[in-house]
């Protein structure tokens, strides 16, 4: 319809046209990648750990003072904790999901295999852990108390029994059946037999690097003989607040030779989760603000330029009306003009978006941008352009045809 004369007119206003198209292109490129980052971060936030996270408290504890073995103290502490009326169960461990610190290890199916099949985190736990975490055992059995040993972390981490997650089982064995099979968790070639499989348990890390094995967990029956211990406690329903106060008191009553950091020492699992995803949440919010600001600036740019052009072309609009243009013709002229500029912008912007992602992919190990984001961005920016130009275009359509006869 009016496309040819509009393009002809735009060629006479190159600078304004190119600037606004470029602004749209840059906005699209940045917004697409920012939305992609937001989506990644939000999907991370919504991952489940495999635990029943309510009523769980995590305690970071460091024993101080002389001592050659910490395992007896750990056992005394655990007994004191489990004796509390508000506590359902508890265990000591090197780490737990979302702690953002722990052990990872390559897993092999043959002792002499040079290449590991996948990576896993190692959780040293006892027979109370599955109940405390609320993890669902789907195959095999739990550890029994007799299997739980005291382990010097400087020695081999391989133990005869291991419980693994279903995700790890599926990565190790084609049919996913791991029960009773042997895996190797260290390079010393000591085998561990899978005695149980749990449905799901997340690794301690939430970052991108752990993304490839974030559900791979191997649980070994041991108390690490270390001055650093984490206690994970499941409280009885409604007892969490009381236990938050009672637990440090109980531990200090058992022995004062310890440090429980004031703010990070004793936390509910909600706090653990909030802290673990603090950066992701912050990044998602920041990217959201960047998107909103960019879109607002682009919309304002379109409104500004369109308003300027409408003001500049009042006489021309009047002439068009005098020559038979209806209000709708004028409205559609400005909407089409904006659409064509925005179309040019989004074509360039799509290429920029993919290019920018390629750069982020190589420099920051970001994932490949899904083209759905580009498609959604294109539609969103075209719609934004049309929405932004609507008010100036409506103003243009209201210009009276008598304007054609005005000399000033």
């Amino acid at each position, binding site marked *: *319809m*009016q496309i*040819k*004369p509009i393009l*002809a*007119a735009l060629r*006479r*206003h190159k600078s304004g046209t190119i600037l606004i198209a470029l602004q749209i292109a840059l906005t699209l490129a940045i917004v697409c990648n920012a939305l992609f980052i937001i989506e990644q971060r939000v999907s991370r936030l919504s991952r489940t750990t495999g635990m029943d996270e309510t009523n769980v408290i995590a305690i970071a504890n460091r024993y101080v003072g002389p001592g050659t073995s910490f395992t007896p103290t750990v056992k005394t502490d655990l007994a004191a904790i489990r004796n509390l009326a508000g506590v359902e169960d508890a265990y000591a461990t090197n780490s737990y999901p979302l702690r953002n610190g722990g052990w990872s290890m390559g897993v092999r199916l043959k002792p002499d295999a040079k290449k590991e099949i996948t990576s896993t985190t190692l959780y040293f736990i006892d027979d109370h852990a599955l109940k405390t975490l609320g993890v669902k055992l789907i195959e095999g059995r739990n550890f029994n108390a007799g299997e739980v040993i005291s382990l010097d972390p400087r020695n081999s981490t391989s133990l005869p029994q291991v419980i693994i997650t279903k995700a790890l089982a599926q990565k190790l064995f084609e049919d996913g059946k791991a029960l009773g099979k042997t895996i190797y968790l260290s390079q010393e070639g000591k085998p561990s037999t899978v005695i149980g499989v749990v449905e799901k348990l997340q690794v301690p890390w939430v970052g991108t690097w752990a993304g490839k094995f974030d559900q791979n967990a191997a649980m070994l029956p041991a108390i690490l003989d270390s001055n650093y211990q984490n206690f994970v406690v499941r409280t009885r329903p409604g007892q969490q607040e009381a236990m938050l106060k009672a637990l440090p008191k109980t531990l200090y009553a058992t022995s004062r030779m310890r440090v429980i950091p004031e703010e990070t020492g004793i936390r509910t699992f909600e706090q653990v989760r909030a802290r673990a995803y603090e950066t992701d949440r912050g990044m998602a919010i920041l990217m959201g603000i960047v998107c909103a600001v960019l879109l607002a600036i682009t919309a304002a740019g379109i409104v500004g330029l369109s308003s300027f052009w409408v003001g500049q072309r009042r*006489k*021309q609009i009047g*002439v*068009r*009306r*005098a*020559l*038979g*243009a*209806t*209000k*709708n*013709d004028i409205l559609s002229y400005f909407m089409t003009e904006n659409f064509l500029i925005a179309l040019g912008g989004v074509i360039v912007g799509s290429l920029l978006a993919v290019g920018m992602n390629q750069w982020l992919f190589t420099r920051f190990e970001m994932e490949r941008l899904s083209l759905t984001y580009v498609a959604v961005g294109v539609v969103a920016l075209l719609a934004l352009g049309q929405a932004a130009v609507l008010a100036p275009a409506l103003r243009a359509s209201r210009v*009276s*045809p*008598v304007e*054609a*006869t005005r*000399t000033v």
Partner: protein
Amino acid sequence: MLKMTHLAKVYRTEVVETYALRDFNINVKEGEFVAVTGPSGSGKTTFLTIAGLLETFTGGEYHLDGVEVSKLDDNARSRIRNEKIGFIFQAFNLIPDLNVFDNVEVPLRYRGMKSAERKQRIMDALERVGLASRAKHYPAELSGGQQQRVAIARALAGSPRLLLADEPTGNLDTQMARSVLELLEEIHREGATIVMVTHDPELAARAQRNVHVIDGQVVDLAEDPRFHANAHLVGANS
């Protein structure tokens, strides 16, 4: 073709009412070439804008080609402007961003005409005004006279029943004005109805009929004392 009866146009503000036209009566027959003359501020241009459906009026009746236009909505008025009326403005009013071809094409596009027919009409109209070779030129690359010829081509391309010209030679030198006027006369001879607003007596004299407007009304010069008073003053000064 064009008949206004007791037509009035009032501009109202909170404190004052200004009559641009009052009890304005005119009847232009098909095929006539009428010049509307009058001093500045007399209402000539207001008449033309109402005649061309660029503006609404406050009272009275206006029949254009047998249609009472006061009841028409904006779209219908646009359609009539597009199909029945051709405009020639004093300032040419070409669109500077479009070349000559595209300028002449503007009203034809609004008519929804097919591309081949548009092209034929545009080239015919440009041939007629002697500017076919300038089709790809932009208005800024043409002289004033050439621009006005393009404006006339734009008005003619749609084959209007009525041609309205507002001081068509006002911005042209004598030679260019003469050639534009000759073109208008030629168009009239071919059957077009032309209403031309001008305050140039020489130009008005070339029309078939002159209508004089003073203070928003059509007056018979022979009976208007204001004309005699002015004539007396002119005579006394000369």
